[in-house]
């Protein structure tokens, strides 16, 4: 049985749908899903249809962590914890921006909840606006590459560090390019009692301006350039990183996406690319990515 069923309306090549399917497979359907407003909710639940073969609730854009806390608390109160793990599946905007307070409260109170952020690096559902996880240099509809400003000027908010600062017992990143790794990490988080946070880099074909057939390959490039470090913290300690053999220059990742196209047009773009390379170099050094 498909747990995230066929027939959903996600775009061809949607990385987020792939991510969700594998999250649910790893949990073998023994879970309660709380989904924030966003692409994945909209494509999967057009009444009277639903793609979810697990108990599922969508409430609002910014309250998934609180709703999940309510489910977890109710299961405890009704002695039904055995039914499964409470899992939040939320976009990057829901996670890093508008829902960060409810996420903070949930982690602080120590609820037994697995929080999965599918990170497609912008508000895709409303038409590709900038979020707190939009990377440096990216063109979005609210950080457009213009004549005087070359796209998004800030780096990604460090959500894993924020989760770690709350004392989350398990904090990890993953990528839809490495599905077995997603499943392994989801199972690990499931078996921990308490809050855990997993951020999964997931492509968006229209939002990034990529070829749908190259979705996985482009996600892999983000890892191979060091721009999306894949790591794992247990009890606050870094326990594993995905090593990179012959780290690729960031241009290889940037040049295949329309959202970075403007960076290749002038001197100013070149400077931004240099800064993006610095981020990759920093990641490589900080997490020890180079094999």
């Amino acid at each position, binding site marked *: 049985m498909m747990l995230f069923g066929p027939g959903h309306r996600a775009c061809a090549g949607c990385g987020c749908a792939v991510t969700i399917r594998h999250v649910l497979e790893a949990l073998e359907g023994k879970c309660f899903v709380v989904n924030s407003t966003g692409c994945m909710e909209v494509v999967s639940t057009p009444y009277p249809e639903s793609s979810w073969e697990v108990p599922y609730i969508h409430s609002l854009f910014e309250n998934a962590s*609180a709703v999940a806390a309510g489910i977890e608390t109710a299961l405890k109160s009704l002695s039904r914890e055995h039914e499964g793990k409470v899992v939040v599946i939320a976009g990057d905007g829901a996670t890093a921006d508008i829902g960060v307070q409810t996420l903070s*409260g949930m982690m602080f109170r120590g609820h037994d909840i697995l929080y999965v952020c599918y990170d497609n690096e912008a508000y895709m559902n409303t038409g590709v606006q900038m979020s707190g996880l939009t990377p440096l240099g990216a063109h979005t509809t609210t950080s457009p590459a213009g004549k005087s400003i070359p796209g998004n000027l800030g780096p990604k908010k460090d959500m894993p560090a924020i989760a770690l600062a709350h004392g989350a017992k398990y904090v990890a990143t993953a990528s839809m390019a490495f599905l077995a790794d997603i499943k392994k990490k989801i199972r690990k988080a499931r078996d921990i009692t308490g809050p855990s946070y997993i951020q999964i880099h997931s492509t968006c074909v229209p939002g990034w301006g990529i070829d749908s057939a190259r979705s996985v390959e482009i996600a892999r490039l983000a890892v191979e350039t060091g721009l999306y470090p894949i790591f794992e913290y247990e009890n606050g300690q870094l326990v594993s990183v995905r090593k990179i053999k012959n780290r690729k220059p960031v241009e290889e990742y940037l040049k295949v996406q329309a959202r970075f196209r403007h960076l290749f047009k002038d001197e100013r773009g070149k400077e931004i690319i240099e800064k993006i390379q610095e981020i990759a170099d920093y990641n490589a050094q900080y997490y020890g990515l180079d094999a």
Partner: protein
Amino acid sequence: MKKVVEGSVAIAHAVKTIRPDVIAAYPITPQTHIVERLSEYIADGELKSEYVRADSEFSAISILVGASATGARTFTSTSSQGLALMHEVLFNASGMRLPIVMVVANRALSAPLNIWNDQQDSISQRDSGWIQLYAEDIQEAHDLTLQAYKISEDIEVRLPSMVCMDGFILTHAYEPVDLFEDEEVQKFLPPYDPKVYLTTEDPLTFGALATPEYYTEFRYVMQQAMERAKKKIRKVFTEFKEMFNRGEESLISLYKMEDADIAIITLGSLTSTVREAVDRLRDKGIKAGVVKIISYRPFPEEEIRKSLDKVNSFIVFEKDISLGHEGAVFTDVKSVVYHMKDRPSAFGFAVGLGGRDVRESTIEKLIVECIEGRKKEGFYFGDVKRVKEILK
């Protein structure tokens, strides 16, 4: 068990006997004593509910959305800014037909900041799909809290309820209250049987996306549920009266209306003041009566129309204003008399805003002004001074 207790303690006691599975709340004046007392019951092991100290009212009500959807009986309480912060979630909870019960300790909304009583907070949420019940005194607030669960949890209704009690005036006052016994409550309120809820044994989707093809029907069935709630409220009130020997059987309560020429319509604790003023007017030969609105949503259209059948005029006293128009309750009451043949004259007053004391003498004076034709039909602020000081 009759005892002199603070209003907040009476509410906490009622909640203790109702035994919600999950309570989530965030502190705000004048709601605090309710949640503090509930916390004490839990700390002392007298109440077994799970209590979540939420990070905001927005989170508190969201937590209850999750808990209620999972099949738990839930409770929260808030006031003013806290209720305003819940606004988005209120529509969501009613739309998912979750029978959450909340006690609102009514308080004014900022700016300017004001922690004192009026009813702008809950009246401003009247379109949110929540049943709204207003209490006149502590006993009624205590009783309505239990009744609200029975109404909301009924499969024919399945809408959340707000029990509104005036902040400070009721939450912080002491009155003798006939407090519930555990066994009475167990007898009156059946265990919560959610019928549809989130479980891995039978996976359901809550909170789907409804396109224009479906959305209207979702709203339509909620409106029908509100209609059914009217019947259910009457039924639950009647059952309550049979068992506890107190309370009303209708969505409104009438006082000296049998031969009244003029009806004074109000809600909440102001009713007691209005009643006193009416008694004084009766002594002077003025045939006034009182219509107390207990259920503001669903609105007691039929009851109010019937109660106004023989009067020449009515006056609404309310503690809110829909800025740019008039008092919300005034508008609602006028809509009910629109189809009457001999439509009574209509007067409305906003009084008691931001905790301004409302005296019997003020109410009496305003009623007399209306009767004597010194006021034209319409809506007024009952008590305005100092405007010049504020404008300068």
